[in-house]
């Protein structure tokens, strides 16, 4: 339990720094901004209390906002994602339920399950984020396009990170 706590604080730090210092500087044609930090909410263990997920999402969003001078934008999107996570987990629950000690990772739950899970959550996070950013409905399709393209890149990054974990697990 304690080890998990330390491990997840470490993940938190790494993801916030990677997002704030590295990925915020990445852009192609003003459309593509990958937001890898949402991975933190994705990989929280199944037995994390849903209230804790919301509060962690809030803190995560605040730290990202501090880096990109966008008070509230990332916070609201991440909290929204943390809120949805509870329902998405229920929706795609396997027949025999989740094991208490397992984590929602590709290596434990299978690639297909993880792909469904992360696509739903990341897409909803990006849609929320980009609609708040533009804050008007007149360019609905531009916003949609930006959200979807950025979402693809975020998912790609998430899968690359998962791939590293996969290798480590099989070598053991």
């Amino acid at each position, binding site marked *: 339990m304690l080890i998990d706590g330390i491990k997840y604080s470490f993940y938190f730090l790494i993801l916030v720094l990677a997002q704030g210092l590295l990925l915020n500087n990445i*852009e192609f044609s003003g459309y593509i901004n990958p937001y890898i930090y949402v991975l933190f909410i994705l990989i929280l263990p199944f037995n994390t209390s849903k209230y804790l997920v919301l509060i962690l999402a809030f803190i995560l969003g605040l730290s990202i*906002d501090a880096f*990109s*001078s966008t008070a*509230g934008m990332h*916070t*609201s999107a991440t*909290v929204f994602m943390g*809120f949805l996570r509870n329902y998405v987990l229920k929706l795609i629950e396997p027949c025999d339920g989740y094991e208490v000690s397992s984590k929602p990772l590709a290596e434990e739950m299978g690639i297909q399950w993880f792909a469904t899970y992360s696509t739903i959550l990341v897409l909803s996070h990006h849609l929320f984020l980009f609609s708040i*950013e533009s804050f008007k409905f007149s360019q609905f399709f531009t916003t949609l396009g930006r959200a979807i393209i950025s979402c693809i890149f975020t998912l790609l990054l998430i899968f690359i990170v998962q791939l590293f974990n996969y290798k480590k697990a099989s070598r053991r």
Partner: protein
Amino acid sequence: MRNFIRFLTKNAFIFLFLFLELISFIFLMKNNNYQSSKFLNSSNFLVGNLFETISNVTDYLNLKTENEILRVQNAKLLSANKNSFTKVFGTTVQINDTSYFQKYIYSAAKVINNSTNQRENYITIDKGAINGIKQGMAVINSDGVVGIVKNVSTNFSSVISLLHQKNSISGKFKDSNYYGSVVWDSDKNQYNTALLKEIPNHVKLNIGDSIITSGFSSIFPEGILIGTIKSYDLPKGNNFYDIEINLSVDFKKLSHVYIVKSLLKEEQTQLEKLNQ
């Protein structure tokens, strides 16, 4: 009452969610309000220091081009120096000139964080209240207009970049003095172009005409380059041109800037307040 409490505890998860969303939306609204975003932006002390350390490292990569720019600027200043002028005739009459006094003071600062890909872009610089920086001062570099100081902390300030959907700067043609406002097209999201609005249809334009600051706003000195005309169009039945301009500043490689303090700004704004 008991039912009400049961209702609350039953839906505690949803209420916590709504509560957190409410807080973040309050942050969002406050940040849009021009004054009160001191709470969370990158002039925030901790993050500011981190950005400064990183900028110290990455600065070495740009040293060569920076030196080039500084050399060019030095050369310009030297050529404007009194020593580089000579008398036209052998004899002159000395006049004690008291009709000039200082109106603007420039101070140098370094950019430690910069963004160009948002709809609202901000720049963080390494000078703050301790260096006499105040809200509303102009920020320029040797190429032209950069932005306006928004928030100031002790050691850092954050600057609203020209690339900000709510930023608008009064600009005019260098040749004809017709003035309009320069705004950034946040939907297009290109860091090197902006729009010039409110230019009436009888003005004669050429591609490549220079747009400079008008000096009306009392923030920017008059005559600082903003950009040049890239393309223009007069839609049918419209009284105003659609003008696209190339910005003279390259926001992608911003490194050193100057902050302009206008000594007469208060006097001008106070006088103009009387009119309202």
